[in-house]
């Protein structure tokens, strides 16, 4: 059987991933591009046509191939080193001028190219008429009209891929002056492409620098502007011939929508409304499914206990299986409905183009913290689960912004902290004050995140935030398939990541809670119980200096909602009686202080593991862990002692 490697290249937001999903179905594999400290997703998949296997690689979306950003560097390195058999360049037919900028560079690189015109329906509605035959002739490559969201043009595209096109002979010609310098430089660099690249971006070679200086003098501006000018000039020439615009075309829809969505008066109300609706849907739809899963694991645990008892297994085996394995995995899987729903809604917001607007709306505020408007998106995701939220910081451009965002995102109150609030708020607060207390905790998380960001910016991460240019993609109706694939992938990644860390962590925690041999699980006689008692005095100034709180906090490192279960085990009572017991050890003030501590101290091990993965630094991860515990201690201290002074004790 023959095998062809196909790389998909193009601008961000041109439907590249949609086409990838359409071609490969769900049969694909998400990995990482190698050799980078920061992970960038590498998606590969395969599909079979006739007797040929197509190995499809989804390259990162880029506006250029200059190799200046991480994404561009990855794309260019791949195209030059791994030499795919065919490159499919997906372009947005409605925004051809900007999209062709990458196309002419792909041609310049000398790659076998097929141009896939996507979103023709949108272009039609805007009154844009493209003569594909002429376009194909002028660029010297096959051009196919497709619609990535359905199968329109798919067969034709595959036919062109299987035909293995030759590299175009019609590469862009710059004006004579430039062509002479390119020819001259080519003798040094070896290829036309590298000659052009060195002339644009400069090099250490003094001779080339002299040429660049000469170009600057002749054209009155620097080489990169000269080349960009001529490239866009060339594109304008091609479009002038091959594209016509009908007068009757509708005026730009997206611009009109943005006049409301990003307007002074409606911008924030709409944003808050959408966020409120998102969380409302996630929690109301997710809660019953969560309960079901919780019950399911309860039943499973009971069945396992009964089964093990019947087969006369020692007690520690039963404890390992029920408390350790089933309990541990249950505590992760129980969040899956919430996380999937959150990702589903976020995928809808993202695919529709709204998230880009959120970044724009929030940029003013984030900029004050030395961050980028895009940093706000990981922070929002943090309300669901810190693990995918930390991973979402990948989209930020500079390392500094990525690290800052990663470090402050865990302060956003994730779904796992909610059960703790629900338990304590239910016991110590009544009526309308319940909602207020909950809201204050979420707000406090945001405030601490922003303050920490500001402090870090003034100390560890000095420097200006990178310049902000963000494309606002046209509003589009998301497709069901696209959204489901998107949400499914991220949920799966969460499960996989959590699973990798959760299993050893569960075993370790179980061991600490079960040793020395014979003690009751997680009781005060166990290792973890003793450790809890030992650290308890530290928490006295915060209002909860008793052993059980110390143990619960330690157990919470596994996953924050485990705090609830830990109290149950430690006091040896069921859910109903727990309230009465906790009434004796907490006051409303110390309960609030405790919740604040749970909110702010270091996140669960899965989140810490993700921080390590994304930053590649144990040092930074350790610093984050210690820093968050210290911040939690300080804030709780201020709240408790302040409350005592005000007479709330």
């Amino acid at each position, binding site marked *: 059987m023959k095998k062809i490697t196909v790389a998909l290249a193009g601008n961000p937001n041109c439907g590249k991933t949609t086409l990838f999903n359409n071609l490969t179905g769900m049969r694909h594999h998400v990995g990482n591009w190698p050799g980078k400290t920061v992970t960038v997703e590498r998606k590969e998949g395969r599909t079979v046509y006739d007797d040929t296997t197509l190995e499809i690689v989804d390259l990162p979306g880029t506006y250029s191939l200059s190799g200046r950003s991480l994404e561009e560097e990855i794309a260019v390195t791949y195209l030059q080193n791994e030499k795919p058999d065919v490159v499919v360049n997906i372009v947005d037919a409605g925004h051809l001028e900007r999209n062709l900028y990458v196309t002419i560079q792909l041609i310049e690189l000398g790659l076998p190219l097929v141009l896939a015109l996507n979103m023709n329906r949108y272009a039609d509605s805007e009154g844009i008429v493209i003569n594909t035959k002429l376009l194909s002739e002028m660029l010297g490559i096959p051009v196919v009209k497709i619609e990535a969201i359905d199968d329109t043009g798919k067969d034709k595209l595959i036919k062109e891929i299987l035909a293995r096109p030759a590299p175009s002979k019609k590469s862009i010609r710059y004006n004579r002056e430039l062509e002479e310098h390119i020819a001259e430089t080519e003798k040094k660099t070896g290829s036309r492409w590298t000659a052009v690249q060195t002339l644009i971006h400069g090099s250490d070679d003094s001779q080339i620098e002299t040429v660049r200086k000469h170009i600057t003098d002749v054209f009155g501006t620097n080489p990169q502007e000269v080349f960009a000018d001529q490239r866009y000039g060339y594109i304008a020439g091609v479009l002038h011939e091959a594209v016509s615009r009908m007068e009757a075309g509708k005026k730009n829809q997206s611009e009109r929508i943005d006049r409301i969505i990003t307007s002074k008066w409606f911008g924030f109300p709409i944003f808050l409304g959408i966020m409120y609706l998102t969380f409302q849907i996630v929690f109301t739809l997710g809660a019953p499914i969560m309960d079901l899963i919780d019950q399911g694991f309860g039943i499973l645990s009971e069945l396992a206990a009964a089964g093990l008892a019947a087969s006369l297994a020692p007690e520690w085996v039963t404890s390992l299986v029920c408390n350790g394995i089933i309990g541990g995995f249950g505590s992760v899987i129980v969040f899956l409905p919430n996380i999937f729903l959150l990702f589903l809604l976020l995928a809808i917001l993202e695919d529709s183009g709204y998230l880009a607007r959120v970044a724009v709306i929030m940029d003013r505020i984030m900029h004050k913290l030395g961050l980028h408007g895009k940093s706000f998106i990981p922070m929002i995701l943090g309300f669901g689960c810190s693990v995918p939220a930390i991973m979402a910081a990948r989209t930020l451009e500079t390392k500094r912004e990525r690290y800052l965002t990663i470090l402050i995102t865990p302060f956003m109150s994730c779904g796992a902290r909610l059960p703790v609030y629900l338990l304590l708020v239910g016991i110590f607060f009544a009526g309308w004050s319940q909602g207020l207390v909950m809201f204050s905790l979420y707000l406090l998380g945001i405030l601490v995140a922003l303050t920490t960001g500001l402090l870090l910016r003034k100390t560890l991460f000095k420097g200006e935030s990178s310049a*902000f240019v963000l494309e606002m993609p046209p509003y589009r109706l998301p497709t069901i398939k696209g959204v489901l694939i998107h949400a499914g992938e991220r949920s799966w990644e969460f499960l996989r990541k959590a699973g990798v860390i959760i299993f050893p962590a569960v075993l370790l925690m179980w061991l600490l809670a079960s040793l020395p041999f014979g003690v009751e699980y997680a009781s005060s006689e166990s290792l973890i119980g003793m450790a809890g008692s030992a650290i308890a005095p530290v928490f006295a100034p915060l209002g909860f200096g008793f052993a059980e709180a110390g143990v619960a906090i330690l157990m919470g490192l596994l996953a924050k909602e485990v705090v609830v279960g830990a109290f149950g085990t430690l006091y040896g009572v069921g859910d109903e009686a727990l309230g009465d017991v906790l009434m004796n050890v907490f006051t409303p003030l110390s309960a609030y202080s405790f919740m604040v501590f749970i909110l702010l101290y270091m996140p669960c091990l899965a989140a810490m593991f993700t921080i390590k993965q994304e930053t590649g630094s144990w040092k930074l991860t350790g610093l984050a862990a210690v820093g968050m515990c210290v911040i939690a201690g300080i804030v709780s201290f201020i709240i408790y002692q302040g409350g005592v002074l005000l007479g709330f004790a």
Partner: protein
Amino acid sequence: MQNESVRLCDIPSGSSASVIGFTNGTNNGFQSRLLELGLTRGSCVNVTGFAPLGDPMIISVRGCQLAIRKEDAADIKVVAA
């Protein structure tokens, strides 16, 4: 007839301008990003609006909508069209 060159950030919402270049000393990477996005000499920029807090500004270039901070747009020299 040559109009006075102004900064892109001073162009009011709803107006168009034509790019004439960048202020000397503009960050190189940033400049090349803007060029790649089509803000080359002579290109037409339409200011379509501002974010709710007044910054960034939203512009339309070569049929695409971009958001750009005012302090960055200050480096782009234009003439009002």
